[in-house]
């Protein structure tokens, strides 16, 4: 039994826990950052948005947390 449990554990590494953030969190970090460090904050935010959507958060929920998104134009196929 122990071996089976250990095998499963090895096959499925623990997912890093997802912590909800607000846009303000990133704004504050960007304010404290200078130069290229601002891009580091932008990278972190981009990754957060992908992770949040993977966790099932909707655009509406993300907008409630202060994030903004562009309205995308129609594309004729």
């Amino acid at each position, binding site marked *: 039994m122990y071996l089976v449990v250990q095998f499963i554990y090895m096959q499925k590494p623990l997912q890093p826990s997802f912590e909800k953030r607000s*846009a303000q969190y*990133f*704004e504050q970090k*960007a*304010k404290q950052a200078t*130069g*290229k*460090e*601002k*891009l*580091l*904050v*932008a*990278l972190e*935010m*981009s*990754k957060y*948005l*992908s992770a949040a*959507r*993977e966790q099932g958060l909707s*655009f509406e929920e993300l907008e409630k947390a202060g*994030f*903004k*998104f*562009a*309205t*995308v*134009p*129609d*594309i004729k*196929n």
Partner: protein
Amino acid sequence: MKNLKKQDLNLPQYPISRINERLYSFVSSSGCIYHCYFFDFATAFSDYPELAPKVFGFNLELHFKPDDPITVPLDKRIAATVTTIVKAFLHEKENAVVYICDNSDNREKARYHKFTNWFKLYNDGSIIQLKRIVRAGNTNILNALLVHKDNPLLNDFIEAYEILTGSYTKPDDDELNNILNDDGW
């Protein structure tokens, strides 16, 4: 990439669905579903209040992958589809896009080369692309700026981006005075 035949570039894009006012989606022939959206990038350009509200980050996400996907080597229709989406967004000549490569799985270099090559191959000349690899903290940030060539703020976007990425140093007041008072070449 050099061996791409001319007809490959004419491959049709996948049909693009506008799921809602924020999100595009398309399905590749392997059955993978991709999502694309543009998010506010103003915090990075906060030193440029005129530009900041017009700069957007671009995320391309693999939303669904079948358990047993059909293998399509180098699916060029994905490239055609993504470039169509970004070009449509920039078509209004108002906004700029920054693509910043996710490094969560250490595949940022592959993403960077893939994405920037897509824009080399499928650019009809209307989009200016600047590529940069920036070192901040202990992280390499692979990114690219995309702007329509007729965007009235093109030069401002480029200058701000070059300063942000550390590839351009704005002249200080003394240097500017010297430049302005120098009547020779």
